């Protein structure tokens, strides 16, 4: 296996991008991520992106966004209709195969032009669930009810997770929801929006984008003082039909973590892309995170969830802990689908 590392990243996230197209969003981010390590597109061996046309309501919208990359002369490029974390996985595989030493990975999501809680219904099967148009909060509330009634979690615990995000996000400029004053009592006093879920249980929806540069071996050492070496990366999937699943669990997250070697050593920090407090609780258990791991120190996805980019943003956040020498071993997580159906775990280390 080749040693591959995250060597730079650039992110932007805000409540709603009302005057900016996806292309205009990504031009500065891609240039910032490449520029931080002194690269231009000519130096990039492979480019891969993740996004969803259902957010823009426009077929092949991702092709427009290639304008932000600079694809002349023609580049080696690919796209996944997934969170950008899966684009990073594809780029990692490409680098493992060899022949290229650098890769640009980016993803973005601008859900504000549509109604995300309805758009998400289109990821359900088209025969049985899709035609019912259950909204995303209602579906998450069904899971929350099962978890609470079965004793898999308590309201107190969910409130603790909400407070951790709100407090942690207080100094994070990319967070769209934060509060230094939030307490468990203030969370429990919130009126539910999809009973039993309270507003602070549901991730704050955001628009944004992220660009990441990967490099292999000595190239990574040249470009970055302290590369975030990817020591393990894996993604797994649970069944699509929620009726066949135990909704208090996410076995695919557990397997992905084991395959990525998450538990092989102490983890200093973990960045989780859970869109609900209930799912963040499930992930902490499935990933085996203990009290010595700082989880979502800057508020995580709950403080600002950019659909299709939340996972790659978590990997970028996790890598930043290494780059800034705040941590030696970290975990970045991405999820996709209903009820954490798909999970990706990326374990990174500094030297």
């Amino acid at each position, binding site marked *: 296996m080749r040693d591959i590392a995250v060597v730079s990243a650039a992110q932007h996230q805000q409540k709603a*991008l*009302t*005057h900016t*197209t996806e292309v205009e969003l990504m031009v*500065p981010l891609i240039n910032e991520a490449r520029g931080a390590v002194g690269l231009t597109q000519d130096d990039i061996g492979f480019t891969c992106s993740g996004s969803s046309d259902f957010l823009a309501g426009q077929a092949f919208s991702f092709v427009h966004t290639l304008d*932000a990359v*600079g694809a002349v002369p023609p580049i080696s490029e690919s796209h996944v209709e997934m969170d950008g974390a899966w684009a990073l996985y594809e780029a990692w595989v490409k680098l493992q195969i060899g022949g290229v030493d650098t890769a640009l990975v980016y993803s973005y999501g601008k859900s504000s*032009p549509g109604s995300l809680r309805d758009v998400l219904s289109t990821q359900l099967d088209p*025969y049985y669930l899709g035609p019912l148009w259950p909204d995303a909060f209602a579906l998450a509330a069904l899971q929350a009810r099962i978890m609470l009634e079965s004793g898999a979690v308590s309201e107190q615990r969910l409130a603790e997770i909400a407070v951790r995000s709100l407090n942690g996000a207080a100094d994070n400029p990319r967070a769209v929801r934060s509060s230094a004053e939030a307490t468990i009592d203030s969370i429990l006093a919130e009126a539910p929006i999809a009973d039993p879920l309270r507003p602070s249980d549901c991730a704050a929806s955001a628009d944004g984008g992220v660009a990441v540069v990967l490099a292999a071996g000595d190239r990574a050492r040249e470009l970055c003082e302290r590369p975030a070496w990817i020591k393990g990366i894996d993604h797994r999937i649970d069944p699509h039909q929620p009726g066949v699943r135990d909704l208090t669990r996410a076995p695919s997250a557990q397997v992905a973590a084991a395959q990525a070697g998450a538990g092989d050593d102490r983890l200093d920090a973990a960045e989780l892309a859970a869109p609900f407090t209930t799912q963040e609780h499930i992930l902490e258990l499935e990933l085996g995170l203990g009290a010595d791991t700082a989880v979502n120190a800057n508020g995580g996805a709950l403080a600002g969830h950019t659909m299709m980019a939340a996972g790659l943003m978590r990997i970028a956040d996790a890598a930043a802990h290494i780059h800034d020498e705040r941590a030696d071993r970290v975990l970045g997580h991405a999820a996709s689908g209903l009820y954490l159906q798909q999970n990706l775990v990326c374990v990174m280390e500094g030297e």
Partner: protein
Amino acid sequence: MSTDPSVPPAALAGEVRLPEKLADVEPVRSVRTPIRLEYDFIPGDASSGYLNAFADRKILGQRSPVDGAVFVPPRGVDPRHGAATPDYVELPDTGHVGGFCVTRLPIPGRDDLEIPYVSAWIHLDGADIGFLGLVGGIDTSEVRMGMRVRAVWKPDDQLGRTAENILYWEPSGEPDVPVTAAGTNAWHAKQVAKEQG
């Protein structure tokens, strides 16, 4: 394979085996699950500038910071280099036909178009790429690459923030641009000239 929507696909045309208690019910051969989602279109900075200018009978492009190439309509970026293009350029409403197509079939939603009609890549004077427009005021059989054209605008009191302000492009009567220098040929000729210094 049949393209008739009333004929079920071969896979569904055979016998459907049902549990006994459902023996007498009509088999489901297909389901319709309509999808409807509404979006607000957000044109962004570059397209907003372009559309707003149309209300003043102006056509705006943007200039590449890399080599000065002018793009219309502007998209905020030089797609060859991924470089932001903050500088607008006002372009004239004259140019030439870079390429064209005579269409003899109606298209849904455009009952206003008389068949046959001509759609063309209009290369504005001063722009380095073409953009799409209708050609009118001339018999379709006489349209040609390199033909000089000018915009026919809606009356001033009907102008909106839309490219629909230009009804069509009509011949200006000026001499044609040679085909070798028309449309994208002009672009390539320019690149070759540049490379040869």
